[in-house]
């Protein structure tokens, strides 16, 4: 190896490292930036309806002062799932900028059932993974729960139900036409 070649290799290495830091850092920085509540509600579709509804719930304000923000429930934490969700989000951008599918509260209301069902399905498929980032059977003290809740949680463990099976509509309003039986796994009695 001549002196010149050595210098060249060194140069490429340095440029590679710098570029790597800038690109990877920039990528992660963007990822983190788009993973904030501030970013989510920068679109009025999110701020006017889902966020306004969240503000009324226990996930927003409660006794102990812990708050769940949009990405806590709607963006997976494991890297690969996070990236997949981010790519899927381009569909949301498409509808925001091009079709304006839910750009008024009325349009949002008209689509609410579909939107809600999408989220319920996703949560069902992941066994409510995002809920379980904070809520864990192992850290639940059933003695401190109401007996009805404790009984249901016992049954849920036994029968492998997942959080969203019962807890639909806890952070945002339920869609019109919601059937209470959807929040009741197992055999719901139909007498109507």
């Amino acid at each position, binding site marked *: 190896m001549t002196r010149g070649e050595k210098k060249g290799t060194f140069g490429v290495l340095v440029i590679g490292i710098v570029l790597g830091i800038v690109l990877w850092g920039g990528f992660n920085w963007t990822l983190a930036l788009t993973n904030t509540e501030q970013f989510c509600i920068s679109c009025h579709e999110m701020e006017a309806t889902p966020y306004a509804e969240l503000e009324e719930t226990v996930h927003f304000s409660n006794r102990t002062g812990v708050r769940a923000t949009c990405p806590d429930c709607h963006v997976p934490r494991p890297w690969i799932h996070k990236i997949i969700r981010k790519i899927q989000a381009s569909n949301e951008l498409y509808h925001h900028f091009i079709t304006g599918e839910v750009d008024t509260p009325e349009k949002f209301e008209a689509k609410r059932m579909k939107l809600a069902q999408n989220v319920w399905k996703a949560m069902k498929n992941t066994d409510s993974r995002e809920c379980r980032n904070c809520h864990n059977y192992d850290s639940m003290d059933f003695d401190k729960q109401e007996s009805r809740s404790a009984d249901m949680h016992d049954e849920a463990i036994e029968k492998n139900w997942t959080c969203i099976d019962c807890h639909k509509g806890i952070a945002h309003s339920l869609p019109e036409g919601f059937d209470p039986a959807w929040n009741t796994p197992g055999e*719901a009695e139909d007498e109507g």
Partner: protein
Amino acid sequence: MKKTIVTFVAACVIMLFTGGVIAGAVDSLRLGQDLQEDSKKPTKKKQLVVEGGIERSYKIQPPVIPHSIDKDKINLKANTCMNCHSEKTYKQKKAPKAGDTHYLDRDGKTTKTVASRRYFCNQCHAPQVNAEPLVENTFKGAK
């Protein structure tokens, strides 16, 4: 004549005193607080949770709610009370079912879901807090 005037004055004086005494004995719900003063801050009260429910005080009383309802919502789109108390879910959730009268419309026809005139549960059913009654109450309902 003189006698009448004396009697009248005496009666007035007596009324003045006794009236004052009676007026002094009246205790308002303000509990002797001056009208000009700021009212006292009420103590914080939590909605009660009573296992097994709270018995009715009289025969046709709408049962009071033995759990907190601060997370529940009743609006045009949804009624979260019905998540447990509906005809479809009450058995599974071990909750009392809304009464049969709640499934009748004004023409007496049976409805599939809770009739719209019974839709707003907390118009009749109230959650409870552990508050002392403002005045003593000896009401006993016919059971």
